[in-house]
């Protein structure tokens, strides 16, 4: 049975209107996060050992292994929410391509809402507006490698530098996420932004940083400054348009002018978060380009 894909602002505000946005492009069921690639069937057991004792031992061993794995999964799930993390990695190539294009050129996109389905957000591969963790993680790793490359071309490279760059960038990311969490708490915003969402949004700036540093390597300082300026502005616009829907109240987000100190404070908060992105982008890359 096909459930219609609903779109609405926040999960807590109930009864968003059911808007049939048309079936998702992917023929797979939207409720499945990942494609089913199992080989199907367990019947690969060959009669290697016809001895009943070793058969018994094999069965017992396999049951022990599965029991152990179950227990480990349960315990691990308490600390790191593995099932929630899986949602953020349910991406495909089309999504990644479109999202990267959106990060560099967000001016033509009109509909920034995240679509929901039965109160849970749709997986990123079906909705380009949903945050994911694939691009931030890959961007972070690529940034470290590109930093190493940039330092290498200036004869400043040593293997420890990679570790130092990685931990430094990670520390700034943690600081930024903590600062955003603190300010969201202080302004008492009722939002469904989770910590992982904030990590994802903070990680999108690595794309701009990589573009800037590579342009700096190819075209010198002028190329670095121009491309970094372009990426800074586009990340600013992207962040504002994405966070506006999540932080501001519904009326203000739709563009209608809503007076009131609370909405103004939330708008300032969104702009502050968005303005911090170019600052970090410049701070983390300017020492790489000479």
């Amino acid at each position: 049975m096909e459930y219609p894909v609903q779109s609405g602002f926040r999960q807590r505000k109930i009864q968003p209107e059911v808007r049939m946005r048309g079936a998702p492009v992917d023929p797979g069921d939207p409720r499945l996060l990942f494609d089913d690639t199992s080989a199907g069937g367990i019947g690969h057991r060959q009669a290697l050992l016809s001895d009943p004792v070793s058969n018994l031992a094999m069965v017992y061993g396999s049951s022990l292994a599965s029991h152990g794995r179950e227990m480990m999964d349960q315990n691990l799930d308490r600390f790191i929410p593995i099932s929630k993390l899986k949602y953020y990695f349910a991406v495909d190539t089309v999504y990644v391509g479109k999202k990267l294009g959106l990060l560099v050129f967000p001016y033509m996109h009109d509909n920034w809402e995240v679509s929901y389905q039965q109160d849970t957000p749709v997986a990123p591969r079906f909705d380009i507006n949903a945050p994911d963790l694939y691009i931030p993680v890959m961007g972070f790793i690529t940034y470290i490698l590109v930093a190493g490359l940039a330092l290498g071309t200036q004869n400043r490279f040593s293997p420890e530098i990679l570790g130092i760059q990685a931990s430094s960038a990670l520390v700034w990311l943690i600081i930024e996420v903590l600062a955003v969490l603190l300010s969201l708490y202080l302004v008492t915003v009722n939002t469904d932004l989770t910590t992982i969402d904030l990590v994802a949004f903070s990680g999108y700036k690595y794309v701009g940083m990589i573009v800037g540093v590579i342009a700096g390597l190819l075209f010198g300082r002028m190329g670095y400054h121009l491309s970094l300026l372009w990426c800074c502005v586009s990340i600013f616009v992207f962040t504002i348009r994405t966070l506006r829907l999540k932080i501001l109240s519904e009326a203000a987000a739709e563009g209608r002018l809503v007076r009131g100190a609370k909405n103004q404070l939330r708008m300032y908060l969104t702009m502050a978060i968005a303005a911090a992105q170019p600052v970090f982008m410049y701070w983390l890359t300017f020492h790489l380009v000479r």
Partner: protein
Amino acid sequence: MHNSANMAFTLYALIQTAILFTNAIAVLHEERFLSKIGWGAEQGIGGFGDEPGIKAQLLNLIRSVRTVMRGVFFCTVLILMSVHSYDY
């Protein structure tokens, strides 16, 4: 032009900074200091109908940090004392 301030920002430095900041918040004394500048616990609770403002949230945060740190400190002292008693 070598930016050394950026280069050595390790995770350990972050943990140290976080602990020192938390400790600084936890040692702000209620009576002697916060009440004097109008940030005491009884001044923060505004009307219940309205959403708490920034000042009330900040005061809540300070109070909860103090409570949590007290609990952590107490448990650490307990653990250290119980470990130390095995020396004899």
